[in-house]
């Protein structure tokens, strides 16, 4: 009975989606005319923002306020997880076995390399595919590896919370500085520099470094809350 209702519901939703998609054939050039937003971003973003990666320009400058909201959603999810898992009951059963020597050595070898890769990706967010969100997730995956490989690993929560708050404040302060200097929130008021080099694109790299640190610290906090055994 329950699956029958589910299947009928799915048929209705699938039909609706198919009807919507029949209006937009796959691969058609839907941004051909000049008044479309995507066309404007592609034509004007390199001059207006100085960023070679148009997706980064859209995320950090054109839709920067939206990105601030997304970062807030992430923050609220992390706080919610911390609150839900606060003061868990002591778990029964044996403590986890320490990992083997090979696994521990491999983790110690790979952990700094993964952190460097994450930092590289969020530093070059305005030049190559990637950016603050992706780099932050890679940093957090390095900590996940360390947690899985070394059973007694524990992070210092204070430090991660401080990093997260400072990075979040840096994002807002960069936006406010744009308000003070140019008259609009998150305005790109700094010099654009040479196109397609590391020191270019004004405040975009600064904001992406802040986002990268914030996302990395936040997701590491999530992993720590989920994996640490209750005292």
């Amino acid at each position, binding site marked *: 009975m329950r699956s029958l209702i589910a299947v009928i519901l799915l048929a209705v939703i699938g039909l609706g989606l198919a009807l919507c998609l029949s209006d937009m054939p796959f691969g058609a050039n839907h941004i051909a005319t000049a008044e479309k937003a995507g066309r404007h971003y592609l034509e004007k973003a390199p001059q207006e923002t100085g960023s070679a990666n148009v997706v980064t320009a859209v995320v950090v400058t054109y*839709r920067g306020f939206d990105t601030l909201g997304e970062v807030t959603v992430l923050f609220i999810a992390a706080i919610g997880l911390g609150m839900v898992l606060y003061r868990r009951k002591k778990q029964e059963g044996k403590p986890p076995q320490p990992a083997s020597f090979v696994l521990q050595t491999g983790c110690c070898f790979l952990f700094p390399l993964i952190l460097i890769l994450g930092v590289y990706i969020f530093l070059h967010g305005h030049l190559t595919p990637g950016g603050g969100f992706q780099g932050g997730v890679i940093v957090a995956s390095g900590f996940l590896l360390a947690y899985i490989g070394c059973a007694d690993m524990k992070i210092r929560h204070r430090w991660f919370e401080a990093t997260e708050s400072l990075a979040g404040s840096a994002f807002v302060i960069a936006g406010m500085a744009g308000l003070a200097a140019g008259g609009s929130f998150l305005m790109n008021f700094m010099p654009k520099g040479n196109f397609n080099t590391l020191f270019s694109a004004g405040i975009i790299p600064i904001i992406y470094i802040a986002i990268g640190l914030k996302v990395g610290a936040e*997701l590491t906090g999530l992993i720590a809350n989920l994996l640490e055994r209750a005292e």
Partner: protein
Amino acid sequence: MSFLFENSYYIAAVGLILIGLYIMAAKKNLIKVIIGLSFFETGINVLLIAAGYIRGGSAPIFSHPDMQAGKMVDPTPQALVLTAIVIGVAVLALALSLAVRLYEHHGTLNLRKIRELKW
């Protein structure tokens, strides 16, 4: 056959969305419901990216002086999905933490046996 081939990305995306919704509606185990949520979210991300694709377009990055704006795909859906993926991870973690709490409280993850979650 050529219809299937032309629209394979749309079909995969809608398929993922429908599979995820079916799991969320019909399964009893809370962990499976959360897996369904993850399927649903992946399907929506694939759908958005496929909707922004333009045939023959390259990634919207001016990494080379010869790149032309006319030969690039739409950057807007990519910018939306970029943040949505990370938010999805955080929402998944929140859902799993709620599942941990429910298991500690009720001793089961079966949604039919947890009285408050029956429908």
